């Protein structure tokens, strides 16, 4: 039996480290020094982070006023079917004890409104909203067409149930002088919403454009889509910021949505000064029917979000646990080491 030449072998089977499974491996070897170092370092980091987060969260200010009960008379008025087109306003005065510095944001907050129901979320037509085809209402059941077979614009359950209270914040400098706090209705949405997901049919004359297509207003809506913002004609149609904010369905039944942000001019250049304020609310959105509640929220933000303490607390707890664990591990390790030493000495 003569040996075959060696080149056979090299030709047939590649001698690479991968194919021969001889790649270098690294196995984490948990030496006491490394592990304890990592643990202590992580613990310190988490504790610091937690404290910073808690401090910054506490530096934010937030005022929430639940007006479900305060404006109960309006709700009652609305429940009576004969008064459905009567406007009802209610005013809620409140006192701001300290001034709110920086950017102030105004939110409306709903309790018990299930915007995350499967059928509810599905009931919208992105094709319509992107301005491509007003008649694309296939996905909008049960709000597809009106009785005379014209498409509803905007169609679907989400659009139909849009939050339509008007909230106006005014500052009472003294008992007689009331200044309306200027609120901006722009940049409440994401860039992609404004420029990708929502588009009007054509930018020239919105009303004409919408009127040209025969369509119907959603059943709950008092006014058509092209007439949502009377002051700013560009903030109309599908590009209305309130509409876009509402159309982004919330993930939980209790949610708040951005309503406006403080226009920092003149009197309010530094934020909201302390003093008497009042909310003037035009009450349209019915919550008593589903035993929900609604409130209005004023809040400032910091670099890490709103005034939720959760993240800060979580960091602090984790840091503390890590430190405890590292002390425990150190103790165990030293004990075992002594034992081993004595064993070797024997």
């Amino acid at each position: 039996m003569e040996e075959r030449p060696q080149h056979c072998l090299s030709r047939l089977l590649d001698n690479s480290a991968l194919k021969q499974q001889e790649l270098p491996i690294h196995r984490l070897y948990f030496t006491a020094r490394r592990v304890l170092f990592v643990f202590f370092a992580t613990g310190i980091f988490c504790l610091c982070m937690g404290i910073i987060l808690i401090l910054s969260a506490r530096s934010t200010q937030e005022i929430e006023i639940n007006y479900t009960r305060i404006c109960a008379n309006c709700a009652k008025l609305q429940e009576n079917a004969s008064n459905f087109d009567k406007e009802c306003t209610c005013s809620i005065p409140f006192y701001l004890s300290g001034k709110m510095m920086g950017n102030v944001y105004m939110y409306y907050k709903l309790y018990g409104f299930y915007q995350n129901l499967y059928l509810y979320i599905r009931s919208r037509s992105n094709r319509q909203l992107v301005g491509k085809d007003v008649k694309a209402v296939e996905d909008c059941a049960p709000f597809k067409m009106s009785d005379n077979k014209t498409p509803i614009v905007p169609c679907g359950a989400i659009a139909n149930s849009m939050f339509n209270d008007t909230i106006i914040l005014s500052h009472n400098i003294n008992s007689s002088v009331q200044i309306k706090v200027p609120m901006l209705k722009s940049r409440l949405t994401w860039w992609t919403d404004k420029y990708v997901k929502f588009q009007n049919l054509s930018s020239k004359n919105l009303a004409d454009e919408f009127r040209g297509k025969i369509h119907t207003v959603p059943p709950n809506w008092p006014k058509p889509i092209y007439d949502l913002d009377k002051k700013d004609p560009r903030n109309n149609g599908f590009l209305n910021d309130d509409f876009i904010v509402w159309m982004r369905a919330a993930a939980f039944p209790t949610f708040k949505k951005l309503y406006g942000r403080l226009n920092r001019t003149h009197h309010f250049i530094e934020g909201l000064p302390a003093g008497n304020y009042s909310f003037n609310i035009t009450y349209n959105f019915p919550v008593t029917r589903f035993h929900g509640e609604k409130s209005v929220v004023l809040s400032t933000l910091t670099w890490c979000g709103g005034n939720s303490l959760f993240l800060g607390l979580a960091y602090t707890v984790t840091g503390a646990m890590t430190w405890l664990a590292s002390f425990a591990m150190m103790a165990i390790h030293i004990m075992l080491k002594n034992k081993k030493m004595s064993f070797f000495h024997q």
Partner: protein
Amino acid sequence: MFCFMVEVERIVKANDREYNEKFQYADNRIHTSKYNILTFLPINLFEQFQRVANAYFLCLLILQLIPEISSLTWFTTIVPLVLVITMTAVKDATDDYFRHKSDNQVNNRQSEVLINSKLQNEKWMNVKVGDIIKLENNQFVAADLLLLSSSEPHGLCYVETAELDGETNLKVRHALSVTSELGADISRLAGFDGIVVCEVPNNKLDKFMGILSWKDSKHSLNNEKIILRGCILRNTSWCFGMVIFAGPDTKLMQNSGKTKFKRTSIDRLMNTLVLWIFGFLICLGIILAIGNSIWESQTGDQFRTFLFWNEGEKSSVFSGFLTFWSYIIILNTVVPISLYVSVEVIRLGHSYFINWDRKMYYSRKAIPAEARTTTLNEELGQIEYIFSDKTGTLTQNIMTFKRCSINGRIYGEVHDDLDQKTEITQEKEPVDFSVKSQADREFQFFDHNLMESIKMGDPKVHEFLRLLALCHTVMSEENSAGELIYQVQSPDEGALVTAARNFGFIFKSRTPETITIEELGTLATYQLLAFLDFNNTRKRMSVIVRNPEGQIKLYSKGADTILFEKLHPSNEVLLSLTSDHLSEFAGEGLRTLAIAYRDLDDKYFKEWHKMLEDANAATEERDERIAGLYEEIERDLMLLGATAVEDKLQEGVIETVTSLSLANIKIWVLTGDKQETAINIGYACNMLTDDMNDVFVIAGNNAVEVREELRKAKQNLFGQNRNFSNGHVVCEKKQQLELDSIVEETLTGDYALIINGHSLAHALESDVKNDLLELACMCKTVICCRVTPLQKAQVVELVKKYRNAVTLAIGDGANDVSMIKSAHIGIGISGQEGLQAVLASDYSFAQFRYLQRLLLVHGRWSYFRMCKFLCYFFYKNFAFTLVHFWFGFFCGFSAQIALDTSYWTFINHVFIWGSIAIYFSILFTMHSNGIFGIFPNQFPFVGNARHSLTQKCIWLVILLTTVASVMPVVAFRFLKVDLYPTLSDQIRRWQKAQKKARPPSSRRPRTRRSSSRRSGYAFAHQEGYGELITSGKNMRAKNPPPTSGLEKTHYNSTSWIENLCKKTTDTVSSFSQDKTVKL
């Protein structure tokens, strides 16, 4: 084969296709393929949907097509399902294509068939039952044939049956005398119109019953007249045969066993896991459905009015019912279909690692290891039982003359300068035989002392070698180059005669009456006076010759235990010395024979010869009288010495066996070879040792005896305290087995079990089966000898069924195919002549020793990796899916999903295929403005990722989650190494300490061992060849025999064939423990 009637007997008429067509016998085409083009799609789909997972996903798909409950779009399921099914189908199709190809290759082999009185080349598949075909030397036999005539006198022919039973000895077949007359006369053969009535197709290789009716007379047919498909014709220039069984009816195909779909234990575990998870899923679904009903009746009602949904349309219970199905669809990702695909892909990768492994590459023959099945890799790490063939797998089937002891002196050991025994290494210079023109070049002997003794003319040494050259059944032949070629019927004899030849005692030729040898250059012709043949009770063989000087001598060789009793008392000193030497040889696993001679005086021999002739002529008790006469003359022998022949093991067998048994893997040897040979190999590769407490040999001839022997062995094992009463009562079986597994643990000492084929046949019957299994599983080594291919498979099945153990079968020949197929994992040794074993196997490589790497490296790693992967996979899916469950509590159980799952499955595939780049590119595409512009309804999540990831808060949460998840694991690992270190931890620590101390010194383990075992006797010899030689029937006639040669040969010669037949049928029917002729 579909027959409308069950075949009770087969009637075949030669040369009459029309007549035979009536019976619709199968033709000679074989099908191992499963599909054809038309049946592929339906059959393959049917098979695939039988898998639980595929069926489950089909159901899911159907559910998703119902709009009321569909919470995910239908393509999330159909895309992966179609992908999986296509991949599997493509794989099945390629597999089947190769089967078709190999079928075609076999079916298209050419053979010469007698059609319309002419020999025509015909493809194998067109051969029909009843055809007469011509075979030539070294050709494969196309179908099961009735031998009609051959080129050798008296219709003899030689076949090699290695493909069938693994034995490489040549076997003799002979035609009926009436048909052998036909010779090669085509016109007479074409006129042959005999009718054969015989048994129906079956898988018994050593049995055939039939009757040939021709010319108004009937001749009974037995196995001796049949050549089976798969044999190779040897030393016979041509023969004619009539096809009895063709294609799927042949004994080879009947023995091949069914191909089973093999699955690994991980597969089974996965299936159970999937079932459990499915149950879990149902529970989740029910909880959420109940939640939905409650929510609908309490909150949803009020909310519904707000949303203008028709109140009467849905009751809360019905809504809950729908929600149940919706959640089943949403939560289906706990059992993701990609699991099955990913597992397959990982296994495929592991198979490539096996194929690429240079450490399993046999450079001499340029054969790499090959994983022929890609789905079984991790099972390799779980093997508990290995069933190994012997010939060709453990041994090379090469016998070499290693040592001898002549007149009390050992030759063949190599001593170094300090007179220490040393290993024979390549550097040692072998004895140079090249000066002798007749020497066999491959023979190597390392002790120069023997040559010197020969040169010095030591008479005992000369006598010893002369005996080796005279006392055997070898036939010689000169090939065209004038070289001597020996035709041996047992490789041991070949080794001995070749050794004598190389030392100058060259066996030249023989006639029925003489043997011519060349003694150190001078020709000498010995007269062969008597041939005292070998058989299994005598365990020896003798010749009586008259040498040229006129002296009569009896030369004898045989088992030492037998021969030592026949010695003359004057040999006592030499006997004890030789006996020591024999023990030493046997301890090294060599096959030994004792050698002795006797001088006879003329008068005594003449008297004896007369008595022998009388006995031969006798009609009553002929065999007993002859045996008595043999005993009479074979006494007062003078001991010459002993020979030791090595049955060469494959490289590295001992090391492999040792390390595998260290890994607690039990190795059983299943061989078609003889008991002695098998035991010998057991000792040679350390499976049997002298340290063993007991070796049980089961050799009963009927069920009762076998049971008794098993019981006795078991009692031995347990001592008398444990009483095994009713091992065969079926209802107690389970408890019994459980009990025994405890006993097995507590059992101390090593035991071995040796059982032969006939006993095994009885032992495999239902009531003794458990006794056998219990005993066998408690023994460290089990050797089954003389087993048929089907019995091999039965043994494997037995262990598989009752032990729940993972089994592996390894073999090289067609006789191992059924065993390879029935074991969990079958391994074929490639690089041998036949391909059947490799084709049937799951893995193939060239050397037994690669088994170690395959099991202990590849198997272990595959198992580790697969386990890690599965853990990760299930973890990932639970983490992902349970979010939906939790979210259900916040969204009114309305089956809304919290995360974008529509493309989750798809992303999953890509992720697992390792391409993070592809993952992100798809993610970005899906979140891109462009794709939203094209499909606003299908991809509504534009902007989500972009805006959330720009918030610092999100990153803080991610960081915190990471810390909170990683820290406990690190702490756990750290403490585990400290508190409960695993073996590998300890070893790693030890290695570190070693590295610091000093580099390890290399040690070479010594395999030599001393042994007290007495007999290493083994001799692969068959009875009957003595008569063959003395009758002269196998001598090739120098002149072509006359056509009517049969009448001219004298009476004595025809009786020889009858004797041979009689003996073989006797042995077969009486189930003697060592049946000599198996086919």
